[in-house]
């Protein structure tokens, strides 16, 4: 299967700042691909280079087998992190205008829009000015603008921001539905549980470099042993070699630094009089653990 997107050794600098350094990855039809990284890591710059908003200093971007063309632009749906719509205009004409810019004729856009508005419970608000809608409604309208022209490549940056649990579930369903329809989806988010639930492959960018790339399950296996789960009494924070300690459903989940084994942590706990340990087990690391280990500890797979 040919990839929808190929990013090959892309670099981009702004003056002395190297925002993206030699990043490469591929995204295929029918997959949800996670584009992860801490704030300021270079994710948005990578997306903008991919969309030809910025020209790369080096490397190559291929979309649908070619460079960026007018036809390719019509096949892309983009929900940027910094989003907005024309606040002083009405919802329906604004969404139709954006869809016609993507090559859809007005009649088809109007017909499809009705279904989307109903699905997102915005149909009764279609003649309202956008500034009269709540933040959540505006977010849903923006998602409709991303999908209305039925794009083959969907890039969503923090798609769940501002949504309540009901609408979060709805958006998740729609993303999954688009994947099943064979669309290539790139999702950038800090909500790691959503990445775990939806993405099959990820790339993790840190300081402009791709530090992790591959299938989620494989990456988790690579990082096995880098987290422990325990229960007991006392304060389990501030242990040597532990990057982060957080409580989950009464248990403690510890993300370990690079080179620190669970046995070392167990020995440290045994020496503490203020702690009573009831259970200790090696945990399969979550993506969040891996994210923290890599970003804080500077590890790459194989280094642990």
């Amino acid at each position, binding site marked *: 299967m040919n990839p929808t997107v190929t990013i090959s050794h892309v670099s981009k600098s702004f003056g002395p700042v190297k925002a993206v350094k030699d990043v490469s990855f591929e995204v295929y039809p029918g997959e949800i691909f996670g584009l992860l990284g801490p704030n300021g890591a270079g994710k948005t710059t990578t997306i903008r280079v991919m969309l030809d*908003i910025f020209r790369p200093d080096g490397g190559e971007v291929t979309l649908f087998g070619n460079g960026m063309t007018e036809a390719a632009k019509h096949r892309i749906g983009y929900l940027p992190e*910094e989003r*907005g719509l*024309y606040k002083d205009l009405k919802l329906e004409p604004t969404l139709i205008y954006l869809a016609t*810019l993507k090559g859809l004729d007005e009649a088809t856009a109007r017909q499809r829009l009705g279904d989307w508005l109903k699905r997102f419970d915005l149909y009764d608000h279609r003649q309202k000015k956008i500034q009269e809608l709540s933040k959540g409604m505006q977010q849903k309208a923006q998602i409709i603008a991303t999908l209305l022209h039925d794009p083959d490549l969907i890039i969503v940056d923090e798609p769940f921001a501002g949504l309540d649990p009901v609408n979060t579930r709805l958006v998740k369903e729609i993303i999954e539905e688009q994947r099943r329809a064979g669309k290539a989806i790139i999702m950038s988010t800090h909500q790691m549980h959503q990445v775990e639930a939806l993405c099959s492959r990820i790339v993790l960018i840190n300081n402009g470099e791709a530090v992790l790339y591959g299938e989620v399950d494989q990456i988790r296996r690579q990082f096995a042993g880098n987290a422990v789960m325990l229960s007991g009494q006392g304060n389990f924070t501030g242990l040597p070699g532990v990057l982060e300690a957080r409580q989950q459903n009464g248990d403690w989940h510890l993300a370990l630094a690079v080179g620190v084994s669970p046995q070392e942590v167990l020995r440290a706990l045994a020496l503490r009089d203020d702690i009573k340990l009831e259970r200790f087990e090696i945990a399969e690391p979550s993506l969040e653990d891996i994210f923290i280990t890599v970003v804080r500890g500077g590890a790459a797979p194989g280094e642990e």
Partner: protein
Amino acid sequence: MAKLWLVAKQEYRRIAGKKSFLISTLAVPLLFIVLMVVIVLITIFGEDARPVGYVDHAGILRPEAREALGQDPASTVEIRPYRDEDAARAALEAGEIQGYYVIPADYLSTPAAECVILDKALSDRARSDFWDFMHANLVQQLPEAEARRLYEGAHLSLRTPDGKRQLSDTDFVSALFPIVGAFLFFFSVMSVGGYMLQAVTDEKENRTIEVLMTTLSPEQLMGGKALGLLGVVLTQLGLWGVTVVIGLLVAPLFIANFPQITIPWNMVGVGFLYFLPSLALISGLMIAIGAAVTETRQGQQIAGILNLFFTFPMFFIMVILGNPNHPLSVALSLFPTTAFLTVLLRWGFTAIPTWQMIVGWVLLVGTAIVSVRFAARVFRVGMLQYGQSLTFKNILTALRQSRQEG
């Protein structure tokens, strides 16, 4: 191209659909119509149309003097002769006449006449018509050709050496036309500039630009907006123009001797020649300002200063109209931001040398091209810096980088 039109259509609808636009567009013609109606009503009902009388002790006035010189008395206030002052006084008190003149017996040696009225002065028209009547009588002793020549007075006409353009003192409306045209052209360019600034800052404030830039090139986006905004301004000017044309057609029906207007088509042609590059110049500058600032108000403050460079000729309008070949007038005709307005203002009062037109136009077009390119580069960088103004250093860096990329 299709996207350019889509953006233009959207921009046109967005601005022209606003209540504030409809009000400001319709207010001017409405005001004009109200003004015309008031003038017509004053003309019909306000002016005293009763005859004016005279008592001629000098024996020099003949009632038919004006007919002899080709004047039609029916189009003027009636002038009635009275035998003596008692008869004239009685007619005045009876309200038959608005006043009367007494021409003394020695009028030809001491030309002074007395005007008798009750409590209200003679109407301007009655006074003007009576003195016209006096002039006709005073020249009646001369041979007809000389009498007619003296009666009609001197008419000064200015003509360019090639004979293509002429200006006459009886054709003052035609002389005013270039000034009015200059302001209309200039108004449309400045309006598009103002709307453009608003459009760009709106995109930035609404944060719509990132989505649009995945669909449109900056040239398509800005070109479409400029077209749409031009349409908005032309709609406004068109409505106002139609009102003026109707006014000019209606006015002669109510105003006697309303001058005939000749449209200076060559000036209209020159106006269009300067119009597009001036539009591109100001649009480019406004786009750059809009992309560099964070909010509309900040942009308007900077644009206000920039607008001074375009409105500069207004401060020197007396110099330009009074001495259109003054070195300052010539300099302003050559400077890109002032060329458009200065050339149009000078047009009605001098024959602008061809070299000045060519040099001024070439400089304007060159500056406009630089302005549009500069705007496209600042736009690419500035529009994605949400909530941040571009510093001068950022702009220079952006220009350097885009040159390397370009």
